[in-house]
């Protein structure tokens, strides 16, 4: 594949209460954000399971960002702590799958951090661009 033409596909699972709100704030402040990044809204970061993440990778995502409320701020008490645990676990497995662990990132972004949201997304997008294409992409898992 021609390296220069690589346009990665990046999926972001954002929790409704904090990070999705931050994304809105970034939008209403007209902050430029990478078009490579696709937002999917879930109610809480704790909804994200390995099944969802792996399916997303198998289907060709070059990077996945999970983002939710800061520790202690989760709208559902402790959901984000569980999200962190699941994230850590999957990171460990990714090596075995020959998938660079850097392709998965977890970040806490609160509703007032519009600018930070843009930075997190743009930096992550850049990182994935440098990493190149997802090596384990299969096309027919569904």
């Amino acid at each position, binding site marked *: 594949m021609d390296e220069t033409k690589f346009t990665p596909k990046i999926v972001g699972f954002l929790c409704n*209460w*904090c990070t999705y*709100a931050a994304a809105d*704030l970034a939008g*209403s*402040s007209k902050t430029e954000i990478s078009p490579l990044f696709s937002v999917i809204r879930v109610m809480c970061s704790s909804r994200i399971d390995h099944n969802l993440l792996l399916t997303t990778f198998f289907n060709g995502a070059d990077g996945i960002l999970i983002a939710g*409320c*800061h520790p*202690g*701020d989760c*709208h559902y008490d402790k959901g984000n702590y569980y999200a962190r645990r699941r994230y850590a676990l999957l990171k460990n497995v990714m090596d075995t799958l020959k998938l660079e662990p850097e392709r998965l990132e977890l970040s806490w972004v*609160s*509703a*007032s*951090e*519009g*600018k*930070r949201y843009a930075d997190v997304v743009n930096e992550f997008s850049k990182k994935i661009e440098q990493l190149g294409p997802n090596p384990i992409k299969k096309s027919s898992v569904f």
Partner: protein
Amino acid sequence: MDQQKNVLVIGAGIAGMKACLLLAKTGKQVYLVEKLPIIGGKTIKNEESFPNLECSTCMVAPVQQEILQHPNIKTLTLSEVEKIEGDIGNFTIIINKKARYVSDTDCIGCDMCFDPCPVSISNEWEENLMNKKAIYVPCSGSLPNVPTIDTEHCYHFNGKQECNACVEACMFEAINFDDKDEKVEIQVGAVIIATGSDIYDVSLLPQFGYGKHPGIYTSMEFERLFASNGPTSGELTIRNSEKTPKSIAIIHCVGRKEQDYCSGICCMYSAKHAHFIKHKLPDTKIYNFYRDICVPGKTYQKFVEKINDIETQMIYHNSMDELNILHNENEITIEYITGKSKKETLTVDMVILASALNPGKDFSDISKMAKIDLDKNGFFITNQEKVGSVESTKPGIFIAGCAEGPKDVQTSVIQAEAAVSGVMSCLDS
């Protein structure tokens, strides 16, 4: 609808909003009167709240949104109550609703009218740390996200020159110069006063040098300086410069002696400020000048200890009267008496004055209008014949939040919910 079951809530801070939401659940019609163009009160000025250091917007924005979308709540912004007549179960209220000049049904909050406006004036909501246009919202993320026009400074209104720029910029024909102030008359069965409190005017105390040196801040100014949607996008730089402070002193209890009470929250928010500083400027030295540390209840002491022990130097001083802040162009020097009765000095780049909370300027007008009493400090007083009551000295009128005296969000919310119980008692007999 049975008008005697309607409720008026004055002030859309956390206390007023919480009370509205509970009452609206019961199907009552609730009127929420707020004098500013936006709802949220003081909590939305804070990036993070003690004691959990959680994002205030995350905490409050869902409440604001629910208020604005609730079919049983009528929110009147830019409004003040002018007349309260009648008694429990049967009050007649007259509200002066000032013209917004922007239609809240047509405006979609796109901000396109701001840029073309030629007028730039100081933004009070941002503690005058930045400017706004004559057509403005106080800050990004304001709710309702509908601008208003400052008619004192707008060229169209003050006649300084012809101007129609905002109207031309607005694709939604949302701006209407002919909008008029309105008198709104409503009937309600009960009233909750939740007007919050003001912040002590530290310029009354020359010893602290406020206003004389750009490095001297009030605590609320500092909250905005830290806020990521604030004047510097959260960068801690000294007023009118790019300079980041290398050392910061926080002075506790400013105005406590004059007011003759402890505000009960400034030790906490000062610790929060120390945490803010350490978080953004890890090498900056922080000094806390204190006389008492007031951290009541189960979680506050731990919060303060965790922050103060690790991150700041606590300096006990003997006398507030003998603490002076001297300054010249480059330096701010704090002169104080140590616990050992020695005079010492400390030079810093920035000072934060932890100022007391004090009664709002219009409390005495409201008290006369509603025929309810104030305490000796000028806060609304509750019925002293009952213990732990939120009822004012007139049945059917309740007090919640900082309007009753300085307090944290927790106790403001407790009082708001207690006021709801009081309202339910007088309306559902």
